[in-house]
């Protein structure tokens, strides 16, 4: 039997029971489309989390003050970032460690900010000149604060776009306006480019002022809350981490590394653990969708077994006029594969549509990979073979005499 004949026979057989065929196909459509949609959502989530982690800078180590563990185990550990152990001099010292390309210091705190009758509560960060390079901040308008502002204690500020829209009326040029931070007047000299929310913080809802101005007018001491270190390359981050740790231990006269009064976060570690979580999540979603695909496959087997029983006399007739076992089994196998492949194609289209729909809501950027489409298609054809095999074999092994007598 050639391909044309096979297609024609399959069409006649499947169209004989349109409702049943459609419902069986629907089972596969739901299975395949949920695999495609959920995996694309999972991959989209992975990608957006990675992008937001990378948007805080590249090859970054973040040093924050605070005891990792108190000696003896009974001391009260204060929250990380609250302890006052790091200074701008520590940052300067770290800049001389091998393979460090830039170091920036930060003094961050939340303050009430007012301007022309509006007010907001936002993060005000005193930063050194290197901050934009290290933390991947770009200027949309005006300029960033620099070290000469810092040294001369000039009261200038750079605003994030969200803060601008909170404080400055629409249509007004923000650069040149003034804002009051904790009651002290600062002149706006620049606006940063929008980065979008990154995890738990919104980098756009921020105000940057010179480091020393923040220490003098806001925090009132000489400590810093964060030191950002950028390694020259991804490979060098471990070495920089070790060297910077040793350097700070020496500077703070601490001999026991477990008693360090600071902690260092490696961005690569954060990225890796986030990737592990999201990849696991994607597998989990895929597995849940896979269960519905399995149920769809059992639906195929159920329908094919019913069909084989119903068409017992047809099978007997075909055998009487000379069909071999292989002719019969091929016929039923191809019917099953046709059902799953049709279901697979519709499912891929539907899953793609769902994924695009999720994308359109703006909550999540989904991505459909070609490999997941290829896999879905292969899986649906495979399900046809696996779940069609048993009914086909049952049809092929029928005794023609009994099949012809079947009522």
């Amino acid at each position, binding site marked *: 039997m050639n391909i044309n004949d096979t297609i024609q026979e399959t069409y006649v057989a499947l169209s004989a029971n349109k409702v049943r065929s459609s419902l069986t196909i629907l089972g596969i459509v739901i299975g395949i489309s949920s695999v495609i949609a959920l995996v694309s959502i999972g991959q989209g989530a992975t990608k957006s989390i990675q992008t937001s982690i990378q948007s805080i800078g590249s090859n970054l180590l973040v040093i924050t003050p605070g005891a990792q563990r108190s000696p003896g185990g009974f001391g009260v550990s204060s929250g990380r970032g609250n302890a006052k152990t790091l200074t701008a001099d520590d940052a300067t010292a770290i800049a001389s460690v091998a393979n460090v390309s830039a170091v920036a210091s930060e003094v961050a705190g939340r303050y009430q900010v007012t301007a022309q009758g509006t007010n907001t509560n936002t993060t005000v960060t005193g930063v050194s000149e290197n901050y934009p390079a290290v933390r991947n901040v770009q200027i949309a308008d005006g300029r960033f604060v620099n070290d000469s502002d810092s040294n001369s204690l000039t009261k200038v500020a750079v605003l994030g776009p969200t803060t601008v829209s909170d404080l400055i009326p629409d249509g007004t040029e923000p650069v040149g306006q003034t804002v009051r931070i904790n009651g002290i007047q600062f002149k706006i000299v620049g606006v940063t480019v929008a980065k979008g929310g990154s995890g738990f913080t919104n980098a756009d809802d921020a105000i940057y002022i010179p480091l020393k101005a923040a220490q003098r007018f806001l925090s009132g001491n000489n400590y810093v809350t964060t030191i950002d270190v950028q390694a020259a390359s991804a490979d060098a981050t471990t070495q920089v981490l070790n060297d910077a740790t040793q350097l700070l231990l020496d500077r703070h006269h601490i001999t026991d590394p477990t008693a360090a009064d600071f902690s260092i976060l490696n961005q690569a570690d954060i990225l890796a653990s986030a990737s592990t979580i999201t990849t696991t999540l994607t597998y989990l979603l895929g597995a849940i969708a896979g269960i519905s695909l399995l149920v769809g496959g059992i639906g195929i087997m159920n329908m094919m077994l019913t069909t084989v029983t119903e068409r017992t006399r*047809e099978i007997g*007739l075909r*055998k*009487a*006029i*000379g069909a*071999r076992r292989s002719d019969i089994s091929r016929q039923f196998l191809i019917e099953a594969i046709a059902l799953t492949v049709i279901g697979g194609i519709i499912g891929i289209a539907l899953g793609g549509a769902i994924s695009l729909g999720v994308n359109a809501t703006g909550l999540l950027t989904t991505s459909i990979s070609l490999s997941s489409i290829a896999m879905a298609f292969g899986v649906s054809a495979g399900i046809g073979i696996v779940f069609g095999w048993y009914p086909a074999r049952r049809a092929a092994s029928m005794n023609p*005499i009994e099949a*012809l007598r079947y009522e």
Partner: protein
Amino acid sequence: MIEVKNITKTYGAGDTAFQALKGISFDIQDGEFVAIMGPSGSGKSTLMHILGCLDTPTSGTYKLDNKDVSKMDDEELADIRKDKIGFVFQAFNLLPRTTVLRNVMLPLIYAGVDADEREARAEKSLLAAGMTEAHFAHKSNELSGGQIQRVAIARALVNDPSLILADEPTGNLDTKTGEIVLGTFQKLNEEHGRTIILITHEPDVAEHAQRIIHIRDGEILSDKKHPQRKARHHAQ
């Protein structure tokens, strides 16, 4: 040319064994029209299955065109049926929702004959079985009982078989339609020299054959020539 020698068929084993055929022998020459008659339970269906290569005898030999088919396996039997035997059954002869032409072509599809040739051969045998071209594209469920049987005859003819086996072909038809169908068999036998074996329990139907073999309880009761064959019904 059919040679049946001392065929037996036993179902089951031990105490429950049942011997459906108890040693049947006969020869049928090419071009003969033979009726095999017997009441139900006589073993005629079992004999029909063996003659039609749907089953093999427990003992004895069955030669079809000098080929011993009594020891063949399922796949070899399927090939013999495809090449040498045409079946007409009492009911469920045609695939539902399938055109007349395609039904007739089915044996040729399994035989791997190419599309143009099988269409030409199917049309030729449909015309020989008394169908008109107007019916070729009809679906099998749009036909009358008599038409269905004639399409089945056309299908039985299409692979140019050595033997046409008809199992109660008029069992579901009224007398007049049945006569037309039997007339078609007679015409194929007389004008085309087809070898036909007709299985029936009705004497009226057997009257159309040249030779009548009576079977009862798995044995041949009589095997007689039947010279005053019933007149052929010329419907078309």
